[in-house]
């Protein structure tokens, strides 16, 4: 069945709300406004204000309240409108949600799901264009997911809610209108990366909003006689090293594509794992295509220049191929 990423998220949320009375959705403008990306439009009428809970502008407060509610037996889905505002809530995520189980010697788990939009591409400028997946992927005690397909948008929520620990879900803002197949039957796996295109010459390893660009680059490369494999990480913490290494062992070449700023990017971690685990399989140094290290400019042509693009991926892939 063809559907959109947004519709897939909606279907997953509705199902979760219908199936488990402990589930509720809380965040800024999830209710009366209908969700800032229209993901929860109509839910207020369907599930009522207790379960579709509009929160005041208090990111630290309502994320912390989500943690408390999870401890108290509920299964909250907290929507932090965008990753940009999640900076205000990081203390609760790092110092409470992710540490609580360990600090309590295993007594308290925090079955919390946090959803947030991330990424650039809509000319929203420096404060509204962050990709900070790499920061979250650094924190022990949580899991981090990045659905990049309609299927994952549909299937990742249920296992995230079933997970006893905090799960952060990044929805790239450029994907909401993505159309694709969703033959949803069961929840998808949330432990492994997935090969989205098989190839033999070079591995393009990516996630989230960069997946469509990597796939587009692979098509362009095919036209140049280069057969690229595209690996969608899907799960950013814990990273699925095995799948990464398996692909690189096959292709012997890797380009990591990541919308985060280059220095200290998640791409660096992927490269580190590749050299740690598959150094002698490499025919060329792994390369990366990341965002330029500049706060995101507003002007469209500058934003485009700052972000990873298919053309840059093609160039990087050709370079590692020595072409």
């Amino acid at each position, binding site marked *: 069945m063809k559907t959109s990423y947004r519709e897939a998220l909606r279907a997953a949320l509705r199902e979760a709300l219908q199936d488990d009375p402990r589930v509720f959705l809380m965040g*800024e*403008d999830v*209710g*009366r*406004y*209908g969700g*800032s990306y*229209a993901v929860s*439009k109509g839910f207020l009428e369907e599930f009522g204000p207790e379960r579709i809970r*509009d929160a*005041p*502008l*208090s*990111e*630290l*407060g309502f994320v912390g309240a989500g943690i408390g509610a999870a401890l108290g037996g509920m299964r909250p889905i907290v929507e932090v409108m965008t990753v*940009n*505002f999640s900076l*205000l809530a990081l203390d609760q995520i790092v110092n409470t949600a992710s540490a609580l189980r360990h600090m309590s010697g295993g007594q308290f788990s925090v079955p919390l799901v946090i959803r947030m939009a991330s990424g650039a591409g*809509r*000319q*929203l*400028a*420096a*404060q*509204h264009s962050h990709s900070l997946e790499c920061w979250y992927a650094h924190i022990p005690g949580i899991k981090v997911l990045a659905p990049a397909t309609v299927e994952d948008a549909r299937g990742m929520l249920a296992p995230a809610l079933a997970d006893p620990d905090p799960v952060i879900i990044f929805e790239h803002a450029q994907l909401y209108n993505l159309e694709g197949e969703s033959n949803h039957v069961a929840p998808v796996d949330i432990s492994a990366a997935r090969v989205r295109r098989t190839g033999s010459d070079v591995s393009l390893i990516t996630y989230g909003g960069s997946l469509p660009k990597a796939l587009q680059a692979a098509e362009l490369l095919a036209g140049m006689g280069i057969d690229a494999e595209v690996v969608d990480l899907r799960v950013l913490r814990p990273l699925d090293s095995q799948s990464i290494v398996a692909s690189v062992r096959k292709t012997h070449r890797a380009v990591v594509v990541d919308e985060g700023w280059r220095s200290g990017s998640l791409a660096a971690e992927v490269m580190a794992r590749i050299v740690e685990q598959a150094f002698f399989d490499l025919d060329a140094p792994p390369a990366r295509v990341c965002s*330029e*290290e*500049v*706060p995101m*400019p*507003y*002007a*469209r*042509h*500058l934003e485009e*220049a*700052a972000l990873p693009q298919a053309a840059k991926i093609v160039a990087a892939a050709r370079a590692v191929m020595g072409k």
Partner: protein
Amino acid sequence: MNASAVPYDKPFALRLLKDMLRIRRMEEEAAELYGAGKIRGFLHLYIGEEAVAVGALHALQPDDAIVATYREHGHALVRGVSMNAIMAEMFGKQEGCSRGRGGSMHLFDAATRFYGGNAIVGGGLPLAVGLALADQLSPEGISYGAQHRRRVTACFFGDGAVAEGAFHESMNLAALWRLPVLFCCENNLYAMGTSLARSESQTDLCAKAAAYKVETLKVDGMDVVAVHDATRIGIAHVRDKGGPFFIEFQTFRFRAHSMYDPELYRDKAEVEAWKQRGPLHSYSARLKAQGMLTEDEFLACDAEAQAEVDASIAYAEAGAWEPVEDLMRDVLTPVGGTTS
């Protein structure tokens, strides 16, 4: 509509009217230009709230500082940033007041001490506290020209920002350290789709501010005269006493929150009722009633505003895209470069 006489001389009375018209016409065109794809990103219109920026900013001196939000076109314009520079910024051209790097939400202007343009709700509040702290600590802060008087930092923010921890911490710091901050809360009753009653247990925002031992005033933000007078009182308090002052401007936005907002959360009737109290309409009626304005004069002012807007669009259209090679510019300050 408040029918009391406008207590200003004609040039100033018309200045207020003209500035409200300039904002209104500029933003109406901006909305069109958004539809045409010339302006992108988020665009938050101030239409309906013009009396606040106009009345308040005309009470400030050139050396005072201003901190605003993403809904700041009007503030920038009244403060003295040229419409050309604002329009070019929204187009993303290098002639923009932020070189096209900031866009609608990030208008900046060093010359007029206009410190943005902040897209993080509540994000400007600590900044304003710090600007005022600098004024308290440094000699420029207390002497200006011949007179010795304190500089003021005026910080604009919405009702939604009041729920943020940043509001609480900033109010306390300003009050504790007695800093010259004028807190200007633009209470338009909604934060995106969330009405004040669904975001605050205490909806009297002056009562909230008073809990920090900050003095307060609540004023009709649709009435430019009331706004101006209240702001003058607030400013005088800050200059005399040094400590902060809080004004709640009761206002309303006539348009959607941003160009993405389907406005599901409020009735057309509510919007219509507020439009009856529209600041342009009510103020020009008052001026006319007291014989300070004729319809011809009004139309002339309006035409002048529209001409300025048209010129600014032409200016922005003619502006240049910054070369892509300059992408990495202004991340760090070049050695020997400018600092504020």
